[in-house]
């Protein structure tokens, strides 16, 4: 081939490198698949890798305690909110980044959950069931339901503060144009609020539907004035961070519809939920990224989105699964996003930090910088002092079980944007013997 022909081919490749086209990508993947198997030749090099040893047993026991505490904290504490109701425990397994008002939850399949049933977390109203999965195929499996949060633009719930009755639903307009509001919008306010500002659900079956009255008495937040230019309106300061502040919820139903027994079992370390996988190397060729290449693909049961771990430690998520090889995007890879739980001293249950964004690692790779938006609800919870915390994965992303260890970090004080400095025990040296999570149904569409 002449130089001009090669230059033309290169120009086409350059365009495709910057602007991928699905079909061409799949073809290129297929062509490169045999070459990826050459990585097996490097496996003996892993003998020279020194891998940090972790105390598996102790940390797994701590995680199990933490997850049980999380479930218990999600149960309503007020006895009057439990009376004459059945409570079905459910876990958030999918939280869309694009549509934050919809989440997918998993509940015991034998429970009779129906659309319209209220969903709560502790004493706080979260939203209602929108759709329930019926078959093993489709977007929702049996035992899964889509929940519409009260922050959704067309969500409505009756509420009462003292004698004042009103309707709440959706988000209030931001005080500054272009800003993101987190306050709930007040609708149909008939008179000026009095001294009583704490809002609780007050539903009428005729208006809210058959199941709506089950949420009667659950908390929504506090009525606060909202200045919009020269106009004064009212909004609700929520108790819960709806954008990522919960992962365990309860669906309210009539007592006879709730299954008897324990909370939904969740053990992230159940051996049956993991398969061993091998990475070609314990390193990578590009210094700015943190990825791994696995010698196993969809033929060995690996799926895109599945977590990869080394013992109780989180390594990353499978970003692409070919037939016989897969790529893993690790926590230290810039642009990596993950829902995070924090365990702080002197607190029984974990805190939900929401989604963090990786900004990359330091030179030694033992520190990972994470961009984090601290919610007002969490800032109130943390108080006036920075707290050191152990960080774990949270449920809310298909394929990633809660409780995988990330590292330790100092949680700063104050609402707003922060950069967390995460200290990893293994400094990004995970070795080549890893495990991939296969414990739940994967590949569901965005909620």
């Amino acid at each position, binding site marked *: *081939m002449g*130089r001009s022909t*090669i*230059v033309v*081919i*290169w120009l086409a*490749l*350059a365009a*495709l*490198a*910057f*602007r*991928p086209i699905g079909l*061409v*990508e799949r073809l*290129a*993947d297929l*062509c*490169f698949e045999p*070459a*990826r198997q*050459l*990585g097996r*030749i*490097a496996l003996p*090099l892993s003998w*020279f*890798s020194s891998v940090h040893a972790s105390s598996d047993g102790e940390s797994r026991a701590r995680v199990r305690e933490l997850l049980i505490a999380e479930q218990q904290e999600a149960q309503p504490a007020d006895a009057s909110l439990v009376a004459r109701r059945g409570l079905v425990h459910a876990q958030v397994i999918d939280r869309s980044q694009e549509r934050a008002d919809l989440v997918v939850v998993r509940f015991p399949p034998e429970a009779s959950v129906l659309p319209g049933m209220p969903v709560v977390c502790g004493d706080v109203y979260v939203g209602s069931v929108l759709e329930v999965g019926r078959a093993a195929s489709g977007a929702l499996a049996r035992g899964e339901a889509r929940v519409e949060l009260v922050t959704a633009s067309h969500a409505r719930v009756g509420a009462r503060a003292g004698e004042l009755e009103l309707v709440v639903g959706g988000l209030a307009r931001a005080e500054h144009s272009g800003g993101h509001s987190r306050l709930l919008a007040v609708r149909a306010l008939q008179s000026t609020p009095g001294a009583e500002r704490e809002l609780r659900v007050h539903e009428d079956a005729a208006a809210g539907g058959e199941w709506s009255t089950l949420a009667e008495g659950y908390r929504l937040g506090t009525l606060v004035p909202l200045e919009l230019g020269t106009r004064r309106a009212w909004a609700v300061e929520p108790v819960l961070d709806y954008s990522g502040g919960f992962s365990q919820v309860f669906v309210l139903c009539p007592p006879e519809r709730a299954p008897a027994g324990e909370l939904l079992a969740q053990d992230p370390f159940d051996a049956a939920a993991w398969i061993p996988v091998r990475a*070609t*190397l*314990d*390193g*990578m*060729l*590009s*210094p*700015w*990224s943190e*990825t*791994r*290449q696995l010698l196993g693909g969809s033929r060995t049961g690996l799926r895109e989105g599945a977590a990869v771990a080394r013992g109780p430690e989180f390594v990353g998520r499978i*970003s*692409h699964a070919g037939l016989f090889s897969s*790529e*893993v*995007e690790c926590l230290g890879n*810039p*642009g*990596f996003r993950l829902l995070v739980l924090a365990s702080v001293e002197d607190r029984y249950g974990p805190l939900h930090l929401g989604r963090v*964004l*990786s*900004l*990359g690692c330091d*030179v*030694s*790779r033992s520190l990972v910088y994470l*961009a984090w938006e601290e919610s007002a609800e969490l800032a109130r919870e943390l108080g006036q002092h920075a707290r050191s915390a152990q960080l774990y994965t949270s449920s809310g992303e298909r394929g990633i079980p809660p409780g995988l260890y990330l590292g330790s970090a100092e949680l700063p004080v104050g609402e707003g944007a922060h950069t967390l400095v995460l200290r990893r025990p293994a*400094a*990004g*040296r995970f070795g080549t013997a890893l495990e991939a999570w296969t414990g739940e149904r994967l590949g569901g569409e965005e909620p």
Partner: protein
Amino acid sequence: MNGERRLAWVAFGAWLLVCFALQGQFARGGTAMWFPELGLVLLFSLLARMEERDAWIAGVLAALVRSAFSSEPPLVQLSGLLGFALLVMALRSSLEISAPLLRGVVAVLCIFACDLWIFLACCARTYWAHGSLAGFEPPVLPLALIALSSGVLALVAGPLLAQLPGLSPLRSRRW
């Protein structure tokens, strides 16, 4: 292509495999910020002495072997390494890269360009996928350090790398 040349290509692939594997294994932690691009230095060393018509084969072969250890998408690696081969050929026709110092300088330039290309292509793909480049910062310093260390390696060991066993049928020029 005769049997001897075919064998030479296989040997070149095997040497590339060794170089990329060693690089992936030892460029960990802090070392990753300056460890030379062994595979690219070998490719550069051979391209400097190769027939121009063979350059694209060397680029494609390097992309295939590199994909065994790197998770960048195939087309990014292919365009990056084919571009690298084209750049070396273009510079070789106008500069005398057999001179040690010039060889080092050209290696620094070409390797920096190739690594930067791969980074930019990955950024572009992330942008198309997520609509944002949050978290990405141009790693100019690490890439410059890696290019410099690779340049030093090309300066010191370039001729030796081109003389690795099995590669003689692919060499056509002297340093």
